[in-house]
């Protein structure tokens, strides 16, 4: 579904992504794990068009999207839930969700997606008119995911959804990610919380300082001695 090949991204003189290659298969949960600064966010931003790579290809369902502007990529069914949630603080929960469906026209399917999001996140349903900026961290993360779902994505890119959340809430969020996946949405999950990520994912790639250093089925990666030592604290 998504094939990234030899992607190189620079920030000025900093070589942030070095020959990064990976793929995401339709229907799976793929996770990209790695320490802070490894280049995970940069990878997602390059896919969703928020930054440009210098070289390499990003093919989505056979089409090269590497030089497509972000607002067109969303229309292709690729939606990013950004790191740090970035909800529209001065708008209500309902307005945030409506904006998620910004480029869509069909009122009926937007409405059914909205109902689905409220069903996934009953807490959002209870707070429809509340300003997003006054939500708790966990609720804001739910809103960010819900907003991402409102674009009716085929591929959902999640950037560290567990960041800064209490352990119980992290578990809840990961269960919901699995539930979203079970409805047929393919997921690319970026995480520092390797333990949780590997437990829900089908395949995994490990990044270190801008490179992919290891990949395989999530269970294999989780069993790898180096990964266990570096990321799983075992």
């Amino acid at each position: 579904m998504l094939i990234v090949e030899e992607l190189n991204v620079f920030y000025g003189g900093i070589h942030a992504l070095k020959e990064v290659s990976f793929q995401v298969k339709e229907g799976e949960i793929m996770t990209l794990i790695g320490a802070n600064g490894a280049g995970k966010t940069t990878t997602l931003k390059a896919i969703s068009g928020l930054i440009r790579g210098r070289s390499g290809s990003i093919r989505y369902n056979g089409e090269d999207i590497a030089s497509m502007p972000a607002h067109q990529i969303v229309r292709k069914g690729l939606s990013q839930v950004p790191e740090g949630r970035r909800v529209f603080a001065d708008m209500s929960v309902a307005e945030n969700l409506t904006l998620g469906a910004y480029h869509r026209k069909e009122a009926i399917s937007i409405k059914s997606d909205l109902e689905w999001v409220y069903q996934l996140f009953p807490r959002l349903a209870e707070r429809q008119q509340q300003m997003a900026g006054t939500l708790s961290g966990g609720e804001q993360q739910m809103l960010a995911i819900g907003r991402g779902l409102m674009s009716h994505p085929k591929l959902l890119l999640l950037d560290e959804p567990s960041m800064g959340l209490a352990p119980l809430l992290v578990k809840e969020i990961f269960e919901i990610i699995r539930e979203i996946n079970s409805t047929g949405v393919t997921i690319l999950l970026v995480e520092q919380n390797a333990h949780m990520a590997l437990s829900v994912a089908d395949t995994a790639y490990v990044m270190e300082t801008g490179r992919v250093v290891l990949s395989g089925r999530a269970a294999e990666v989780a069993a790898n001695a180096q990964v266990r030592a570096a990321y799983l604290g075992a």
Partner: protein
Amino acid sequence: MKGGMVRGRSLSPASSRIAAWIAGALAVLCLALVNVGVYTYRIDFYFTGILVVVMINIILAVSLNLINGFTGQFSLGHAGFMAVGAYASALLTIYMEWPFPVVLIGAGIISALIGFLIGLPTLRLRGDYLAIATLGFGEIVRVVILNLKITGGPRGLGGIAPKTTFFIAEIVAILTVIIFSNIVKSSHGRAFVAIREDEIAAEAMGIDTTKYKVLAFSIGAAFAGIAGALFAHHQMFIDPRSFTFTRSIEILVMVVLGGLGSISGSIVAATVLTILPEALRGIAQYRMIAYALLLIGLMLIRPQGLFGTKEIGDLFRLGQRQGNEGRRAQADGGEGQ
């Protein structure tokens, strides 16, 4: 708790609609009284002139609010666009003798085009840089006008027919308010606000942020140009000194004071800040000091401006928002964060 939530949702929009209705009715009543006053000559010629300037300033403030308030860009170039509209319209009237409504539209279109051309490269800049670039634009417009023959250079351009009656200024101001209210309420309006709130997230939502920023800038410029045209045909004489940087700042003060992102706020602030200096004429030499102190005082008491991002009708909803914050505190507690 549950009951409170349901109440908050079902009653508030209704009460806010009533509040909006009352505010609207009051505004119409005020306007009607003013009209009666003007047409029965109970309001003298001098004060009618001030009311025309009130209308012009409302157009300027509301249009700048779309750029600076709703879209969150920092433009200091409004006087420049006003100058473009003023001179373009004056020349159209003098040399082409077009009817005034056509001149107004022409001034709007010319300013919009220039706004588009300026906006395209500069809106890639952020914050302070955009402010400096638009400031530079305003100065360039002034210098060009100073040095052209057709504009009369520093001597100015006179003999412009006095076509801006109170009635016309009023109609254009009302149309402006209606048009901008509709823009910000539409799905485009939500796109503007999303850009203000978080440009990256807006882009990720599929909003073409460059397009919308340029759009806000061009629409804002168009109406600044129309305001400039009304101004030129009210003063009958224009020179570059009417369109200095100070003018841009005056308009900005109205927008900030009324509330970035509130059209009602811009209307109230533009009205008060235009009439106030006249009302303070009694204390002659202390007038500007009193004015400045008032501004500083207001910014200290309400840094978000009179209305914040709210409209008059929303004021009733404030109670509900506080209720929400109470719930939020509980939710946080429940999560054990």
